[in-house]
């Protein structure tokens, strides 16, 4: 499948006399194939928005290579801009214009036929409120307007930064349906979001970024599989038997983490081994359940941003790849 978006070794460094040097992007790679819905994930301050802004020509990179639809950007951005619809960060519009005026002016600037304005207003559910001033809109309505502005060009590549931000549950579901239907119509969608359940539901593939570097990428199932810990939760009939059980399982080479009313086991190939070992000790299992890994837990593990009781994690405290003992990527590279 041809790549619609490719980024290789992207670097952006901010230098400040007071705050020193900060590498917002530190050799970041990304690839998005045609027709996919691609999730772009990362903790706050990891470089997601910087990546998108750099890709769209708003920020000047310090190094690296980027292509959109086969054209090197930012040099060829004027040529491909008509095929890229984007919203970056929170939607911002002139508050005294109505939604229709806002879109009409954008359509005029981009030489898009005016009839598209009503089409996209209908698509995002703003048809009946299109004449009202944007300043009267809720965050969710502004978000819908932002999506409408990105769709105005009928783009081949749609980049949405936190599109579900501020949407009500119905709106989130509508956004999910819209995204899928756009992808089915051949549009490639890059979705940056912190709602990982949504990403897992919508996206075909993901890229996870932490401190300016890619920590994982690939199809969602592949990323989940590669970071699955084969964990199993065990409960016994009598909680008092848990220490005995833990000792027996540890002797058998299984990694055991004791909890108040259950045990978490890691490195279990066959759950039947566990029942056999415990039965030999006269211990009877009331629950034996494999713990399914989800994107959120993979994300927290890869970026090392899981909350720790009693600690207040700071924005830049997350994982950086590349050093010894750091999590690896899920395979592939530039052009893979």
């Amino acid at each position, binding site marked *: 499948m041809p790549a619609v978006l490719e980024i290789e070794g992207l670097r952006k460094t901010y230098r400040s006399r007071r705050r020193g040097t900060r590498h917002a992007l530190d050799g970041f790679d990304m690839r998005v194939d045609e027709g996919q819905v691609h999730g772009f994930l990362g903790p706050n301050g990891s470089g997601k928005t910087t990546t998108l802004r750099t890709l769209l020509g*708003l920020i000047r990179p310090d190094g690296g290579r980027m292509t959109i639809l086969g054209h090197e950007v930012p040099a060829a951005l004027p040529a491909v801009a008509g095929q*890229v619809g984007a919203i970056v960060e929170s939607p*911002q519009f002139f508050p005294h214009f109505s939604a229709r005026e806002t879109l009409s002016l954008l359509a005029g600037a981009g030489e898009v036929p005016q009839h598209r304005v009503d089409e996209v207003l209908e698509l995002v559910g703003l048809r009946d409120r299109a004449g009202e001033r944007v300043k009267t809109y809720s965050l969710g309505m502004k978000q819908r307007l932002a999506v409408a502005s990105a769709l105005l060009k009928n783009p081949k590549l749609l980049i949405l930064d936190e599109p579900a931000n501020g949407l009500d549950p119905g709106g989130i579901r509508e956004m999910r349906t819209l995204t899928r239907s756009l992808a089915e119509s051949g549009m490639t969608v890059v979705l940056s979001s912190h709602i990982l359940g949504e990403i897992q539901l919508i996206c075909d593939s993901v890229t996870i970024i932490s401190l300016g570097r890619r920590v994982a990428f690939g199809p969602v199932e592949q990323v989940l599989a590669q970071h699955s810990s084969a964990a199993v939760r065990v409960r016994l009939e009598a909680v008092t038997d848990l220490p005995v059980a833990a000792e027996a399982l540890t002797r058998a080479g299984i990694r055991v983490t004791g909890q108040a009313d259950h045990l978490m086991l890691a490195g279990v190939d066959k759950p039947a081994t566990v029942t056999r070992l415990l039965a030999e000790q006269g211990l009877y299992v009331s629950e034996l359940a494999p713990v399914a890994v989800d994107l959120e837990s993979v994300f927290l593990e890869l970026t090392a941003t899981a909350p720790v009781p009693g600690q207040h994690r700071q924005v830049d405290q997350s994982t950086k790849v590349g050093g010894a003992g750091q999590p690896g990527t899920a395979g592939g590279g530039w052009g893979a």
Partner: protein
Amino acid sequence: MSLYRTELRRLAKRRFTRWMSLLGLLVLALVVIGVFFTNEKIDAAALAKAERAAEQQWQRDVRHNAQYRAECDEAKAAGTAQAQDFPQDCASIQPPPREAIATRWFLPSTFDFRQNFGDTLLPLTAILALVGFVVGASFVGAEWNTGGMMNLLLWRPRRLTVLLTKLAALLTGLVALAVPTTLLWFGSFWLVAVFRGSTAKMTSGAWQSFALTGLRGLVLALVTATIGFALASLGRHTAMALGGVIALMVVGQFGLGILLAMAGVRFAEAWLLPTYAVAWMRKKVTLEDWNTCQATYFGECKPDTLEITWQQSSVLMVVGFVVILGAALWAMRRRDIS
């Protein structure tokens, strides 16, 4: 071209543009109304009344003069200390000649188009320049502030083209406002002159001179609008331009003026920007230094003078225009948009 048309539409749709233009026109209308009601036509009755008033004034002056002469003679004869308050020779106290009291001093204010209209082009230019400056600053400043500029650049990723197109739209809008307003200004004061003054001696040369002054006013308004636009773009906020101008006026002009006066600098006004604006409009401003005295053959004391010409003003305007717009374009090209 579509971007240019869109930006013109955006400019016209903005409430701030509409309100500021309306406010500017309202102030100009008030000026015209004020001039209309504070002037009147000079007819034979008004002229006769003025002549009577001049005659009465002359007679009062003659009486006062005679009284003063008598007091002088009396004091000199008595040899009192008060004698020193009078001239040495009381014969030098002479009544004023009748022609010293001009009839025109007692005429009501009248609007002579040829004589007075040129001065009215100064407030017209000031209002147009002010409207151009704040609308220009707000047009781009609000776009930066609300994220509109970023949105636009996602559609048209040519930064300089976008900024210059916006500027072109702003200047077109200002010309579209200024030209009809200036024509209305000419027309309104022509009517004021017809009903409350005189339109005599309006030769083609006088019309040409007014037209050229109006044109220079338009150029000044366009330059001011561009500077407001460029400053707001540099600071990416309307307040940058407005704050910059307030700082310039308070610190750079009032403060500098006070400092120069305290230091006794000759021709202090030559360091102040309004002098150059007036020189641009009137073609020449002559500054006088009353601390120096150049004696003439007739014993008069004439101050040193310094002439500021419209050519010097044009150099200052071009330099300011190029430096500020150049800086805005450079920043637009180089700085990240976040």
